[in-house]
């Protein structure tokens, strides 16, 4: 019976797990696709326009229309492309960004994989995402994609470093790589206060990692046509496109988790608080796009290595010192 109970519990756990996975997957994808519409509406709001408001209520049907369009478009593989890698590249980005959501805890218990190295897993997955972009550019076998890919490689590998370093302060403060524990460690004070420098650096690195404006150097449409995905069309392009929005949601969720106390908050259920906080940062991403202009590539790189790297190292040292002193007491 015990075995039965055991297996029943295991079964139950599996079902819950499956439910969570399905919920997270569906939630993330729906959020990402809504973001396609949401971003256009928000940009319009900040540019004194109305944005897409013709299809369905509030123009929400635009999401469905876009999905139908992108699915029915001709999926063209250029004859000069390296076909297997060309097909593989967009899959990688979708897979890695979606996998990163496994370690995000949306609520006290709403987490797919409560890994004790959760943060490292995210960093690993995000590093994998670079391959997608580089391979896409390489496999396209044409000049603009290659230039885009080269830029992406330089930009993403570089900012990966500061991203990792900026998070180490949080890890030291929480004393864990487990995201749930990091959230729980913020019960008294959100890390955005002691780790404000880490937050800023992570935010900037987040822009670079998701290749969002103002740091969308790999796809600058006015210099490189569309950068690494110039040759992509149909649903393959759709994967890059949706992948970018999934990335935005991911970075926003991480900021929430790491610096703004995740699900913590009064009165409302934890998941709702999490969603609200994440939404604010998603909007912030769009606001940045609506406001800031793109730097030159050399400015981007020198800013990264000459400003952000020393700053994040300093942040790390100061945090370490503070933790050491406090631990010593």
């Amino acid at each position, binding site marked *: 019976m015990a075995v039965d109970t055991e297996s029943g519990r295991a079964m139950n756990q599996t079902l819950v797990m499956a439910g969570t996975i399905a919920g997270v997957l569906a939630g993330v994808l729906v959020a990402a696709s809504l973001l396609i519409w949401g971003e256009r509406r928000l940009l319009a*709001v*900040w*540019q*004194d*326009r*109305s944005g897409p408001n013709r299809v369905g209520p509030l123009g929400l049907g635009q999401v469905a229309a876009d999905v139908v369009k992108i699915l029915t478009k001709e999926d063209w593989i250029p004859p000069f492309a390296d076909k297997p890698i060309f097909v593989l590249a967009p899959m990688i980005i979708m897979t890695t960004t979606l996998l990163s959501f496994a370690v995000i805890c949306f609520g006290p218990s709403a987490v797919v994989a409560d890994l004790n190295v959760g943060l490292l897993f995210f960093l690993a997955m995000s590093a994998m995402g670079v391959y997608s972009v580089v391979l896409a550019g390489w496999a396209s076998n044409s000049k603009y994609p290659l230039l885009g890919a080269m830029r992406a490689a330089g930009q993403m590998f570089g900012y990966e470093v500061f991203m990792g370093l900026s998070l180490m302060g949080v890890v030291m403060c929480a004393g864990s790589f487990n995201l749930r524990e990091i959230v729980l460690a913020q019960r008294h004070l959100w890390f955005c206060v002691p780790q404000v420098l880490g937050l800023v650096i992570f935010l900037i690195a987040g822009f670079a990692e998701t290749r969002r404006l103002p740091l969308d150097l790999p796809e600058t449409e006015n210099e490189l046509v569309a950068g690494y995905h110039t040759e992509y069309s149909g649903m393959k392009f759709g994967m890059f496109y949706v992948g970018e929005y999934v990335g935005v949601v991911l970075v926003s969720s991480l900021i929430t988790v790491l610096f703004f106390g995740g699900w913590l908050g009064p009165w409302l259920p934890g998941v709702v608080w999490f969603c609200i906080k994440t939404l604010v940062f998603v909007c912030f991403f769009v*606001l*940045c796009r*609506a*406001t*800031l202009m793109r730097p030159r590539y050399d400015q981007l790189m020198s800013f990264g290595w000459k400003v952000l790297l020393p700053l994040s190292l300093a942040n790390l040292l100061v945090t370490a010192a503070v933790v050491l002193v406090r631990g010593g007491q």
Partner: protein
Amino acid sequence: MIALVKALWTVFLHSFRKRATIEYPEKKAYLAPRWRGRIVLTRGPDGKERCVGCYLCSAVCPVSCIALQCAEDETGRRYPEFFRINFSRCIFCGYCEEACPTYAIQLTPDYEMSEYDRQNLVYEKEDLLISGQGKYPGYDFYRVAGVSIGGKGKGEGENEQPPIDVRGLAD
């Protein structure tokens, strides 16, 4: 850094501004009278066609979308036998209006002329001719031109002396 934040704030404040766009087609924009839209042929103050078939509009048209044939009635007044504009080629540059010496061809504030069939965008004189004078009321080319037409003989135009009598001694 502060400038960036200020910029973000300024842009954010735009959320509460009045929209610059309007909801076409429910609402329509105001178009100035000199807006360059659908081309019309106007009539003079006497209700007669202003176009004298001088071919200047067709010559100046950068996309060669105007074709006409000049004709003359029994009194010497000139008019276009046919006047055709291929709006599927027209770029609404307004050069024709600028070139027209008689204010006959004018561009109007109308842009709603989409068609499913390109052939329907070929406008003939009957489609172009309106019954009014358009933007320049009161102008009549023949009153200032030297030629005589029905109802206006030699020397009867504006700023003209009576015709010279070759047989007279005084002149």
